[in-house]
């Protein structure tokens, strides 16, 4: 008999037991870290009122439906906005800090490819009521604990500041309408366009050079100590975070003065997780000190989300690399393979 094939929507997929066991190993390891560090797990509905999600300013929803009263519902695009809603609604008077974690699917209208589906599972925390720099340092510490528990060896954390470039533009007297063009080029990661925009503004050569160079600066703590003038002021927040990090967290950090995250709600420190085994970030997060206020409970907050599929891909990639190195020792022909990477 011919099997009947029933399609599933683009950007979604089934997970079968062999893969599920491996994914489960990852989520259980991460969950143990979150619980140990005092983050209580929550569920929120996958469907929310579109109007409520819109208040948060996250990624625009890709899937919408009408309910039986004609209200527009949308599938959440992340967990940060729903948890901001939850804190304001369910914990209107609770004494901060409030610590939550989640393991939940989110939905976005992306071009589906490996590690980037339209329905994807995220693991993350939200630390509410803990201001910078202490709260940021705590979130980075939990992040490293989680990645260590998963078994990743080679990950790095890119650390930047969402307000850095705007601060710099303001201190150099760049008018707000010109700043938008520069920010667009930066978000598009197009340094050629950035250089072109800067050339049109009639800045002094030194200022234009500074505004082109700074967002391309990335490296160790020398990046912060080497900064002077308006840049030194702009990186003051990052220096404050760095001073609070334990050595095993600090050694994972790459400062990235051009780091921009696409969500509109970030206000201060932002970070991305990188692994050499994958060409895209495993996850990331940052501070969103204004978000809770939009829901009526003004509290500073920080959080991060990791995409479970990407942790899994990076983990299998690191394992393969480990085998290649072992192969080098056993057969003597592995050198070209490893060096060729």
């Amino acid at each position, binding site marked *: 008999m011919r099997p009947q094939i029933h399609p599933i929507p683009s950007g979604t997929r089934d997970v079968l037991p062999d893969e599920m066991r491996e994914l489960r190993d990852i989520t259980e390891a991460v969950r143990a870290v979150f619980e140990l560090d005092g983050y209580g797990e929550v569920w929120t509905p996958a469907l929310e009122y579109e109007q409520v999600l819109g208040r948060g300013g996250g990624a625009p929803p890709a899937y919408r439906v009408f309910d039986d009263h004609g209200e527009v519902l949308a599938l959440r695009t992340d967990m940060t906005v729903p948890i901001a809603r939850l804190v304001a609604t369910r914990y209107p008077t609770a004494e901060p800090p409030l610590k939550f974690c989640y393991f939940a699917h989110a939905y976005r209208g992306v071009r589906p490819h490996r590690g980037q589906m339209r329905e994807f599972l995220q693991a993350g925390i939200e630390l509410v009521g803990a201001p910078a720099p202490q709260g940021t340092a705590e979130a980075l510490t939990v992040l490293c604990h989680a990645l260590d528990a998963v078994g990743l060896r080679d990950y790095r954390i890119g650390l930047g500041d969402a307000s850095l470039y705007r601060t710099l533009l303001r201190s150099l007297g760049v008018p707000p309408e010109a700043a938008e063009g520069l920010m667009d080029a930066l978000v598009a990661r197009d340094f050629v366009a950035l250089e072109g925009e800067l050339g049109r503004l009639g800045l002094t050569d030194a200022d234009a050079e500074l505004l082109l160079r700074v967002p391309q600066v990335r490296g160790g703590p020398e990046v912060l100590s080497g900064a002077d003038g308006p840049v030194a002021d702009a990186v003051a927040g990052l220096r404050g975070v760095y001073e609070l990090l334990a050595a095993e967290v600090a050694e994972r950090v790459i400062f990235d003065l051009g780091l921009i995250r696409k969500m509109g709600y970030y206000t201060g420190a932002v970070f991305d997780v990188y692994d050499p085994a994958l060409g895209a*970030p495993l996850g990331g997060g940052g501070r969103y000190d204004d978000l809770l206020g939009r829901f009526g409970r003004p509290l500073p907050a920080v959080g991060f989300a990791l995409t479970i599929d990407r942790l899994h891909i990076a983990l299998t990639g690191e394992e393969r690399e480990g085998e290649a190195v072992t192969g080098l020792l056993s057969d003597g022909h592995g050198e070209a393979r490893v060096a060729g990477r």
Partner: protein
Amino acid sequence: MSPTNGLTIAVPRGALLSETLDRLDAIGVDTSEVRSNDRKLLFADIGVVTMRPSDVPTYVEAGAADVGITGKDVLTEQPERDVYELMDLGYGACRMVLATVDGPDPSVEALRRLGVMRVATKYHKTAAAFFERTGRQAEIVEVKGSVELAPLTGLVEAIVDLTATGTTLRENNLVIREELFVSTARLIANPVAHKLKAAAIDAMLEKLRAA
């Protein structure tokens, strides 16, 4: 260490190849094997992989290559690719243009009387974005082969295509009506490699600027 410090570079075959190899030679990469062998695709010793220009963003976005060189026309047509655009290399200059047959502009006539102009192109996203930006209704007809044929046969009123010298357009009795942008070769990088191999990428940029 090799001159590129272990970076894998995606190099475009076709019109950009020869000048790309000249630049790589100038920064100390020995490209003689690439020049002498146009069947081989992977040159592990010098960290070079060769491919069609339109495939370069695919390899770089996925991290299969750390950096790559391709035309701005390719990047404009693939705006969703998550790559860093680091440098305008300046060579391979050509223009993306809107062209029609010589004489009275048939696309203006079509817009006025029928409300829509039909446009043949290999760059359908670039063309669609251009007409949206300029507030004109256009039906984009995607063709794979010689675009110049489409307006001559009455398939479309206009074409959007890349031209370096304009010779092919002239030979087919086509004239340039508008210029969308000038395209040159660009250096792009994978976002993760841009952080984890920052020193190697910055060193390569510096050498390219000096070369």
